[in-house]
């Protein structure tokens, strides 16, 4: 229990020194969900068994540094030496690195991705020279991949809880709100409402009992920035919540977390326990007289629970269905008490503002969108991962410089932001700045941070159908425009991609889309038509080709395509025939193969298996 920040800081120093004996080599492994999926678990096993009896080596699991496309990552930090990051590490490479770099003194520049930190190593670029990192402005994510997320002392030694200490002991709640207002911080959950304003409403709302809720129900299928933040830097979320609670006068907080993120929830539980032991949660936090506790509530898989009122219904143990606003949660929220709900992304910005000041914070960004934006760059992009860029950055910088362009040197077609609630940006938007205003002007929204890049092999009709099938399935069914409107729109899209569309279907989709947007009760329905409307706006011709020519130019919609073997390229190697799950491919060895279209299920196995590019999709 620490009753002052000074005592907390000196504890952290002692604790760090106790754990980190001098002369010890540290091996840092990216053990976030994506690292593990790429095989970091095997790397960990290898390193552990290789170094089983070596006391002078310490293996640390860290969060994600963001360069997911080069996972698994293994960094080696020798005493007094540079931190060298090695990418795409497998068992063999790990064993090799232990042998050469840890035991001997060969840093293996040939295998290195980058040097992280101030040291220079001949033949290895600094990580800040790599295009993926060079164009980023890592503020909120600055600790992810750099600290051991399970070691609270490392967080504290990197300015952790300094902002909470400053707010609670040196500032009044109104000062905190003023500072957040002055910074221009807007909600990172998607809608972009000014955070300071939201806090002020909850502060002014009468009542003894108030709640702070952290929305960690990252439901956008294709976004994982909150997961990465929580996995890599869980205490930052708690610190943001403590400051928010102090500002509005809440004594109890909830994190509403996604059950599909077991590792993140485990990290968060551990962090809450540590914070309680250190006196950062509980009564009289750091001797300030202010008390606050946090409880985790696990979501159970409902996208609509990202909506404030539905989320609160779920915490109360009911079906997660939204209700009309007003009353707003700030007036009547959880159990009828004033409640303030912020996204993980919003809350993790707060400590920075308190510590560095609103002027510093607002130096980065565009006129009405301040600070940085965190995006999950995925899809048909070479360098996918988690990136943090200044608000107002051009889309081209993100796609071409940071993302390295399109896979297989293909051509950019579109980028979807805002997930199922957003729309797509087309080629003509590549030089637009990315911020709240310009994305709305383009027919999309900022959203929570998903950015899915598409190439010419992505069918926009199929893409719109994908999102609508998602929102239709996730519609809670309470209001009619959303429940029935999304269903009818989906049926029309299925008709079009099934080769049974009519030209008037496009107008009908637009008309229905406008109705659903206007008439729905909550954000889910009000934004559900966006992917459809935006794809019609920029790719109308593609819809028309599906309808008039009964053709899918991207080769995706199964009812409109056939697979055939290009006789010029087929070598008769039999690989496709052997892999075909339905025995639709015939042909003897060294003979040209033939696909029986009546049997073929268009599963794409043969095309992916063929080494000679001989499978043609038409």
């Amino acid at each position, binding site marked *: 229990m620490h009753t002052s920040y000074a005592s907390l800081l000196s504890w952290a120093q002692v604790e760090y020194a106790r754990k980190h004996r001098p002369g010890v080599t540290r091996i840092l492994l990216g053990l976030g*969900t*994506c690292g*593990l*999926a*790429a095989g970091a678990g095997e790397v960990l096993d290898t390193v552990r068994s290789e170094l089983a009896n070596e006391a002078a080596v310490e293996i640390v699991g860290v969060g994600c540094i963001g360069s*997911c*496309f080069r*996972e698994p990552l293994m960094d080696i930090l020798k005493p007094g030496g540079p931190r060298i990051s090695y990418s795409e590490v497998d068992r063999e490479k790990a064993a090799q690195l232990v042998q050469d770099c840890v035991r001997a003194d060969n840093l293996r520049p040939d295998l290195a991705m980058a040097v992280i930190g101030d040291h220079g190593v001949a033949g290895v670029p600094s990580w800040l020279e790599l295009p993926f990192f060079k164009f980023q402005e890592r503020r909120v994510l600055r600790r992810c991949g750099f600290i051991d997320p399970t070691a609270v002392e490392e967080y504290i030694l990197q300015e952790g809880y300094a902002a909470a200490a400053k707010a609670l002991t040196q500032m009044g709640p109104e000062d905190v709100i003023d500072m957040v207002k002055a910074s221009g911080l807007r909600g990172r959950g998607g809608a972009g409402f000014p955070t300071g304003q939201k806090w002020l409403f909850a502060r002014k709302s009468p009542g003894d009992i108030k709640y702070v809720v952290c929305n960690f129900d*990252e*439901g*956008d*299928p*294709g*976004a*994982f920035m909150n*997961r990465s933040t929580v996995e890599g830097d869980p205490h930052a979320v708690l610190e943001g919540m403590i400051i928010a609670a102090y500002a509005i006068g809440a004594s109890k907080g909830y994190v509403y977390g996604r*059950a*599909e*993120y077991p590792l993140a929830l485990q990290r968060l539980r551990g962090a809450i326990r540590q914070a309680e032991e250190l006196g950062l949660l509980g009564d009289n936090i750091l001797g300030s007289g202010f008390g606050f506790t946090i409880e985790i*509530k*696990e*979501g*159970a*898989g*409902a*996208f609509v629970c990202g909506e404030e009122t539905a989320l609160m219904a779920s*915490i*109360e*143990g*009911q*079906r*997660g*269905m939204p209700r009309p606003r007003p009353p707003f949660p700030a007036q009547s929220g959880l159990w009828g008490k004033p409640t303030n709900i912020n996204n993980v992304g919003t809350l993790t910005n707060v400590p920075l503002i308190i510590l560095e000041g609103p002027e510093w914070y607002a130096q980065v960004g565009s006129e009405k969108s301040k600070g940085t934006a965190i995006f*999950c*760059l*995925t*899809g*048909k992009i070479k360098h*996918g*991962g*988690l990136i943090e860029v200044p608000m107002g950055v051009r889309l081209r910088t993100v796609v071409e410089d940071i993302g390295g362009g399109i896979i297989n040197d293909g051509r950019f077609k579109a980028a*979807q932001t805002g*997930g199922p609630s957003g729309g797509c940006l087309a080629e003509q938007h590549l030089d637009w700045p990315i911020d709240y205003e310009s994305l709305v002007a383009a027919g999309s929204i900022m959203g929570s941070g*998903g950015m*899915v890049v*598409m190439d010419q092999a*992505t069918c926009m009709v199929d*893409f719109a159908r*994908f*999102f609508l099938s*998602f929102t239709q399935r996730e519609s*809670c069914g309470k209001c009619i425009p959303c429940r029935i409107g999304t269903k009818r729109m989906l049926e029309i899209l299925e008709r079009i991609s099934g080769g049974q569309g009519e030209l008037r279907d496009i107008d009908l989709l637009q008309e229905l889309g406008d109705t659903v947007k206007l008439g729905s009760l909550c954000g889910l329905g009000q934004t559900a038509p966006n992917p459809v409307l935006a794809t019609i706006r920029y790719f109308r011709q593609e819809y028309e080709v599906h309808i008039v020519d009964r053709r899918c130019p991207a080769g995706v919609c199964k009812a409109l395509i056939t697979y055939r073997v290009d006789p010029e390229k087929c070598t008769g190697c039999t690989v496709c025939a052997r*892999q075909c*799950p339905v025995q639709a491919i015939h042909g003897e060895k060294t003979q040209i193969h033939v696909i029986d279209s009546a049997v073929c*299920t268009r*599963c*794409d*196995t043969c095309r*992916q*298996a063929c080494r000679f590019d001989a499978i043609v999709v038409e």
Partner: protein
Amino acid sequence: MDDKLHAILADYGRGDPSVLIPILQRIQTELGYVSQEAIFAVGDRIAVPPAEVFGVLTFYAQFRLTPVGKHNCRVCRGTACHVRGAPSILGSAHTELGLGGETDTTSDGLFTLEEIACFGACSLAPVMVIDGQTYGRMTPARARSLIRKVKEAESAH
């Protein structure tokens, strides 16, 4: 009543309906699904009508009303996975397991195949999870061979 169910319910008292979802989550984790018996027992325990328990249960995608197979195969159908070929991964898992329509569990009770909204490992799309182990950068052929491996290990027993 099932002993495990009994033990779970013993941890919760009356009067706080907000424990409903956590109880159901525990039942699902420990027993694999929420049975009809469990629905009535939970309602009885925390004084919430069984109809309401059922309402909550069927609202959230996480809950199951039928038993799960011994092995769990989950295919991500998030956006990034979709554009990088999740439908063909799902298709190949369906074909390999001989599943289709409404059934998600094989008749021998060995496999349950589920579609998940998003695992959040989008950079490694398409993603498939077998028995808690995540596999990234899937192809239809790899999906089939991973399932076959589990099958072979089973028949070797």
